[in-house]
């Protein structure tokens, strides 16, 4: 799945990291350059384009009226979907979502859902019958590592700039007022910070080359107040409790930096 990395490149990356250096000149706890543009797709109720280094994602948020789940009749629904477009990397294939794509969508979904970014109670139109369903579609355009952090940042931005029509109920019928659009009920902000373990050390925001040589990966989702809302470990090597507790502290600082892009 990952591309084959020449042994000499692998060793040079590990040696650099052992000397607290990285191939692209960053320090171990430094993100690449980040850019975030809001409302880039006018036809989508909410949208954002995120770039972290050369990684580029486009996210659209689209509302639709649907039935609620039977166990949560008073809550709106959030659906996260991701496509690793074959244009983004020579290793991505067209066809149904593969495991990487499903993992990305599910981790982002957990981070946003458990982070309670959107107040789903306020998206109920008729209890038990009609609610707003918000689709988040993550379109990966260019893949150079660390999709998770970019996807969560873009999804939260797209939710924050999304506008939905006002829905009122008259005689059990829903009337949508397209003239009067209002923003989604945003509760909280949640962001994700991903680390890769390479040669015994952890680096933040791994590039594609670093992801190809990493032993293990850990993504930590955090809310504005520093509470943890999602985590995902990837890769084959184990990780210790002490390492993890240390990373949580770094993640708090780093998600604080990412928050500034949402202002």
């Amino acid at each position: 799945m990952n591309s084959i990395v020449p042994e000499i490149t692998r060793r040079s990356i590990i040696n650099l990291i052992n000397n607290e250096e990285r191939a692209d000149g960053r320090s171990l706890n430094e993100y690449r350059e980040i850019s975030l543009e809001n409302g880039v797709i006018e036809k989508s109720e909410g949208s954002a384009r995120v770039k972290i280094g050369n990684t580029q994602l486009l996210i659209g948020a689209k509302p639709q009226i649907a039935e609620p789940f039977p166990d949560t009749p008073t809550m709106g629904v959030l659906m996260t979907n991701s496509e690793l477009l074959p244009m983004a990397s020579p290793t991505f294939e067209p066809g149904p979502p593969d495991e990487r794509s499903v993992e990305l969508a599910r981790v982002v979904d957990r981070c946003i859902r458990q982070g309670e970014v959107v107040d789903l109670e306020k998206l109920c139109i008729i209890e038990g019958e009609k609610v707003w369903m918000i689709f988040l579609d993550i379109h990966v355009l260019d893949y150079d590592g660390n999709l998770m952090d970019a996807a969560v940042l873009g999804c939260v931005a797209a939710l924050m700039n999304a506008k939905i029509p006002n829905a009122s109920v008259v005689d059990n019928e829903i009337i949508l007022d397209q003239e009067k659009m209002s923003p989604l009920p945003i509760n909280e902000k949640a962001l994700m910070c991903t680390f890769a373990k390479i040669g015994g050390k952890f680096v933040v925001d791994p590039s594609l080359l670093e992801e190809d040589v990493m032993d293990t990966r850990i993504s930590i989702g955090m809310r504005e107040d520093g509470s943890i809302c999602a985590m995902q470990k990837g890769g084959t090597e184990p990780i210790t409790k002490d390492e993890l507790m240390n990373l949580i502290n770094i993640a708090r600082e780093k998600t604080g930096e990412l928050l500034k892009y949402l202002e």
Partner: protein
Amino acid sequence: MIIIIINNNKRADGRDFNELRPLKIEAGVLERADGSAYLELGGNKVLVAVYGPREFYIRRMQRPDRAIIRCRYNMAPFSVEDRKRPGPDRRSVEISKITSEALKPAVFLEKFPRSTIDVFIEILQAEGGTRCAGITAASVALADAGLPMKDLIVSCAAGKANGQVVLDLSEIEDKEGEADLPVAIMPRTGEITLLQMDGHLTPEEFEKALDLAIEGCNKINQKQKEAIKKRYGE
């Protein structure tokens, strides 16, 4: 029902019958792809990436004497008013097929036996005429990938809306209009590499629409060349 109001023969969006929507083309916008292009035509936003020539792992589909071009036209779920379900449908499969056929004549495929050239067309926002926009951007991306080409394929639609033969149909004109005629040409020779039509036209109207589409193609071709020059210098 939407009524298209025409004052002084102007169209609903204020254009003349032979006027294109605002057009912007940029070459080399993606890092990983071998070639790429971004195009905006009115509200259409199209991104194209080209990979290849690269090894074609489906042995039975390899051609011993040339490369093949595979196209994938795909609309983003958020590109249209009501969310589109992700994945291919009958429409996108057809467009993918005719797009690869439209691009083939321009590329020297015999230089790359047994390989494949993959063209990925992503419609990020759709506003009528996406297949033409996709083909126009795809040939810029093919050139950006450094492939030897005879010409830059360029595509544009004409049609009939509100009783008038017009160039580059907008979304409303496409839906409410009487006919739609997407065309792709090789501008140096004027040869047609893609032609579709639906609707009703008299032979005279058809000729007028075809001439108009070719005129539009030639205008767009200038922008394609500018985009490549801007990326690689004169």
